């Protein structure tokens, strides 16, 4: 039995955890973690052979970096209770205070351990910077990327998660300034997707175009890998969205349903645009449409009735399919379309709520324009979308610029030509030749592992 804490003393003498809710949130956390390797494959298949490993590694190292920061101070900055509207404060540094505590959000206690919530939110903090990596494929120094993840996570993601996701403690004090204004963002349309998309745009500008872009083709080297990654993202996203209910309940079921239908229709929307415009429905289009739908439904999944999720999915798929062409018009090399999919998709989902949110969904706190709620909610949604966009864009630009001017953020033209995998990781992604590309082990002088007789092991 867990002992009562000061936080909950007023409401319950002996808080108990709901085993079903706790199991669902822990399982959801694991599902959301899987999204980052899924993203790594989704991105990795889209780049050329010579940079596939680096693309995947940018995601994997983000899992490492953010997990450490989150325990030390990230969770406290995002969800602490002694801060203000702009950051959470210091009371959860090191997660020590959280070990036996249930969490309280929006003045109401949830029957899950604080640590379950902290781990669930950690996975969001991991995938958000990982999303940005798609904008700078083939050309970012690995150390520069690592430093960027530390700084952007600390200065942008952790505070912005507080703005949007933290509804305050027992008395709803210390809530994020956007949460306090009633923004509807169930699982992270603003904090995750608009945030990452804006940062991607900034970095694409700071690092500049890849050599040869846009004249020479940068064909995806492995489309089955892209589809596998998209499938893993889709699967994990049920944890992302339905898990955000923080309980095994009706809200989770609604979020689950809306996630499925919006993603399905976004696939169709994207393919329809391609078929009409280019003459072919492509597999890359199907994978991209799925991700666009998942992005758009993320903020909206608990605030819509399912038929309007159908509309949102179609809209997001079609709009994002058109938006990925923007980079050619404006000349920024957002290599894997972080802007076209995540920024645009996030904005579509966020603003859509201003029109279609309805209290009939059982969880929305206000109605959108089409349900008689007037313009108010649309205004709040727009304020949230564009303040997160602006903050992330400016900070990412400044951080990226500073890294580029100090330790350097971009590899040399020659290394870009021969491939970033060899330069940064001393590996090649695929070796399908019978001769192993002539690979051999270095002689005994270089061998560190030896048997007792001094013969290389």
């Amino acid at each position, binding site marked *: 039995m867990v002992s009562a804490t000061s936080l909950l003393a007023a409401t319950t003498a002996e808080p108990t955890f709901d085993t079903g809710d706790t199991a669902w949130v822990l399982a959801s956390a694991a599902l959301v973690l899987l999204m980052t390797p899924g993203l790594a494959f989704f991105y990795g298949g889209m780049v050329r052979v010579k940079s596939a490993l680096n693309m995947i590694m940018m995601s994997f190292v983000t899992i490492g970096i953010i997990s450490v920061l989150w325990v030390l101070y990230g969770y406290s900055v995002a969800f602490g209770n002694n801060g203000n509207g702009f950051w959470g404060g210091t009371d959860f540094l090191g997660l020590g205070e959280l070990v036996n505590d249930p969490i309280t959000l929006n003045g109401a206690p949830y029957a899950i351990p604080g640590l379950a919530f902290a781990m669930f939110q950690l996975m969001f903090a991991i995938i958000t910077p990982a999303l940005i990596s798609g904008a700078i494929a083939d050309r970012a120094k690995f150390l520069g990327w690592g430093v960027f993840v530390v700084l952007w996570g600390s200065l942008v993601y952790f505070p912005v998660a507080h703005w949007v996701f933290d509804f305050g403690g027992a008395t709803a004090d210390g809530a994020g300034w956007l949460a306090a204004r009633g923004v509807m963002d169930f699982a992270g349309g603003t904090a995750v997707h608009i945030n990452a998309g804006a940062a991607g745009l900034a970095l694409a500008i700071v690092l500049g175009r890849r050599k040869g872009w846009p004249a020479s*083709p940068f*064909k995806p080297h492995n489309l089955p890998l892209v589809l596998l990654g998209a499938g893993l993202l889709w699967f994990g996203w049920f944890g992302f969205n339905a898990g955000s209910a923080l309980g095994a309940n009706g809200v989770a079921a609604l979020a689950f349903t809306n996630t499925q239908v919006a993603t399905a229709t976004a696939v169709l929307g994207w393919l329809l645009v*391609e078929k009409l*415009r*280019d003459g072919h429905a492509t597999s*890359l289009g199907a994978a991209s449409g799925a991700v666009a739908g998942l992005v758009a439904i993320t903020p909206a999944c608990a605030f819509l009735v399912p038929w309007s999720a159908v509309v949102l999915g179609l809209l997001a798929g079609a709009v994002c399919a058109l938006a990925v062409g923007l980079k050619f018009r404006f000349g920024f090399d957002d290599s894997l*379309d972080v802007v076209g999919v995540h920024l645009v998709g996030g904005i579509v989902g966020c603003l859509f709520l201003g029109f279609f949110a309805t209290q009939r969904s059982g969880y929305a706190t206000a109605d959108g324009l089409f349900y008689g709620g007037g313009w108010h909610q649309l205004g709040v949604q727009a304020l949230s979308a564009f303040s997160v966009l602006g903050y992330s864009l400016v900070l990412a630009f400044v951080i990226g610029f500073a890294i580029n001017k100090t330790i350097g953020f971009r590899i040399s033209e020659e290394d870009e030509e021969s491939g970033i995998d060899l330069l940064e990781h001393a590996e090649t992604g695929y070796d399908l030749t019978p001769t192993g590309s002539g690979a051999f082990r270095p002689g005994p002088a270089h061998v560190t592992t030896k048997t007792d007789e001094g013969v290389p092991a």
Partner: protein
Amino acid sequence: MKLITAVIKPHKLDEVKAALEAFGVQGMTVSEASGYGRQRGHTEVYRGAEYTVDLVPKVRVEIIVDDTDVVDVVDVVVKSAQTGRIGDGKVWTTPIDDVVRVRTGEHGADAI
């Protein structure tokens, strides 16, 4: 002795191989190649961006034959690789000085 080199459409390889075996050719070397002739390439579309791919996948077949068989073997290859459509490929011959069978050390026509 002559080296016959044929660059053909990949899906015609099985037919060419069968026809050569039926004729009595004892061996060949096959490798994947890419290139273009009058056929040029094709267009691929990724997220709405069109790319012209001008190097088309081909298969290169190499056969060493005795001088007396050259005309017939070239004929067999051409007939079995032909579809009549653009992009069927090319066949050419090159004179060679000597051939050695690695296992036995035999030279010339005996090594074919």
